[in-house]
């Protein structure tokens, strides 16, 4: 459908983008207001912008520590998931094994598992091995989410790599493992990278396991840490909006740089080519 875009269309676009972005715009505008101004009025712009809320957000709670924790946990999760998943996805798409449909079915089913159904045994397990309040204590349960996701997306990407290259490698006497390392992996690298971003975002956003397993403040991740800014008596909206802006910035950067890849990864699992 190659309709040309008229002026009405662009007006619609601007309104649409404005509505989608409105919460961010408002939260950003709030974060630069002096804390006293937040509760009195609904003015969009403040006369004297201040960074006081940002100072409070960082000083009242260990926000930077939360971000570091999230970063470490998400990176470890991504590396482990991609490592296992790329090997499995290669075999699933390229090697002549039986029960491919069944195995993919199991993996898809695993990715749809409700976390609440597995959290109590996982909690018991992590407690028993003494990994409460540690990075590995989160990385292990995150495999439940990340590994099926990674295998699912990677197998789509691997499927798209032309067979001819592989066949000629085989003729030249390469072993399957050599073919994987020298031919498939370099060709699949963009897909692997995309999968990595999606797994990273999924791990960064996880809430239920992080809430339950890492209960000490120094081990909390961003989503849990942010949700604890509200105290019982007051809700420091200034701190909260500043903290929100701070934790959203890395994601905005990630999205801006990799948006094409993210869209490719997201849609790969759902559309037949």
């Amino acid at each position, binding site marked *: *459908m190659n309709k040309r875009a008229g002026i009405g269309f662009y007006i619609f676009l601007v309104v649409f983008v404005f509505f989608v972005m409105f*919460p961010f715009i408002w939260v950003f505008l709030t974060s630069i207001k002096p804390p006293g101004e937040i509760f009195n009025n609904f003015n969009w712009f403040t006369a004297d912008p201040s960074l006081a809320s940002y100072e409070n957000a960082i000083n009242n709670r260990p926000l930077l520590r939360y971000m570091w924790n999230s970063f470490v946990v998400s990176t470890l999760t991504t590396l482990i998931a991609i490592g296992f*998943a790329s090997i499995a996805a290669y*075999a699933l798409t390229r090697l002549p094994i039986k029960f491919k449909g069944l195995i993919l079915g199991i993996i898809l089913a695993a990715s749809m598992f409700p976390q609440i159904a597995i*959290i109590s045994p996982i909690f018991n397990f992590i407690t028993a091995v003494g990994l409460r309040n540690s990075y590995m204590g989160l990385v292990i349960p995150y495999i439940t989410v990340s590994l099926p996701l990674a295998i699912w997306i990677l197998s789509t990407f691997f499927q798209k790599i032309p067979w001819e290259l592989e066949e000629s490698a085989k003729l030249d006497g390469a072993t399957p493992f050599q073919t994987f390392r020298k031919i498939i992996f370099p060709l699949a690298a963009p897909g692997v990278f995309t999968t990595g971003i999606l797994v990273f975002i999924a791990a960064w956003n996880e809430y239920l396991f992080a809430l339950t397993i890492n209960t000490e403040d120094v081990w909390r991740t961003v989503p849990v840490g942010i949700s604890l800014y509200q105290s019982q008596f007051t809700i420091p*909206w200034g701190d909260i909006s500043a903290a929100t802006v701070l934790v959203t910035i890395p994601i905005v950067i990630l999205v801006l740089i990799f948006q094409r890849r993210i869209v490719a990864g997201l849609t790969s699992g759902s559309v037949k080519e």
Partner: protein
Amino acid sequence: MKFQLNEKQLGYLMVAPALILVLLVTLWPVAQSFYNSLFDYRLNDPSRSERFLSSNVDLERYANEYFYLSRDLELLESQAPDGETADAAASIRTEIEGYHDSLITENGLEDQYAEVEEMLASFTAISDSELKYADIDNDLADDYKNYLDEAQAELTALADSTDSEEFATTAGNISGTLGTVDTTLIESNFIGFSNYQRYLTDGRMWQSMWNTLLFTIVSVGAELVLGLMIALLINRAFIGRGIVRASVLIPWAIPTAVAAMMWGFLYDGQTGIVAHYFEQFGLIDDASVLLSTGAGGMFSVIFADVWKTTPYMALLLLAGLQTIPGSLYEAAEVDGAGKWQQFWQITLPLLKSAILVALLFRTLDAFRVFDLIYVLTGGGPANSTESISIYAYITLFSQSNFGAGSVLSVIVFVSVAIISVLFIKFIGSDLFAGRSGR
């Protein structure tokens, strides 16, 4: 000769680690959840903090109490003011020693008991539950517990009828110890399906199930309709695609908990701008309605979810739209089909599998909803936005009731399985067509 795997064997070898890991972190915990749900299993109650299929003895505490008990019983006999009481005290001692001996010997616990006593003597805490607990015969445990009650009553009677103060004190001490010994003999907390019976007739369970279904159907429905409209509108060439794509991805990419905090601020009755504008435009009577009433709470949660996931839905559908060849529309135009007809005859049928897959993912996601509601309303006001996952979480971790909480977890799991099966029936094998290859 060099050992060489053929391609097939190598394939299985490469799939195995990932598959085993996936099964280990999903199937095993689900099986455990199911097993837990058959017990009255509570982390905050020492006599129920493990799952006991048969009666059990907490040897650590038992050995400790028994040490004082046998000492005091001897003391009691020597303090007896007359022959009759001495006989009574002696008979209690013999009975208890008899039960103690059968408890240890009939269950073959001699070595374990000795080891526990040794550790107690050196003040070492016992953390190994294999050592700490031992299975015992159900009938013996019953008899022993019954006798402990009897002996307690007898001692109280003896203490009341005597004038000797020291005898009465010792008898009182023993009576107290007997009560403690009684708690170290733990009866099985296996309760079978009775927790299921309880929760399947529980009003709060059905209320949270209804909340979850309402949330799922309304938000996924709204996301589908809006997402489809947006996808149809932006499925054309225009300037600024990148900006639109990025602005659409950001709500999807930020953590749900962060989105929930933002919306909590926007809905707030005093400072929330969305609440303020809604009130100004007469959509609601008062700005506080959004978070302080049941209907307002449900609307708020759904609205925030629609905001966060419609863009994602639109992206999935847009990718589906872009695979429909333009020539089909040209042909339809030539045949004189209107826009509306084109939509119903071409777009929708060809988009069907993309829509169903997107619906499947979104429905399962929405049904499991936890963080959005937990952070935004906490399930309130008055449980009116409590989803089944939140109810399960509260039962599991706020009440430390792992048995009952597991029942709710299993209910969520079964519901998700039913939804998936229904969807897969509609989608059929399309889902795997692009992947399993030759």
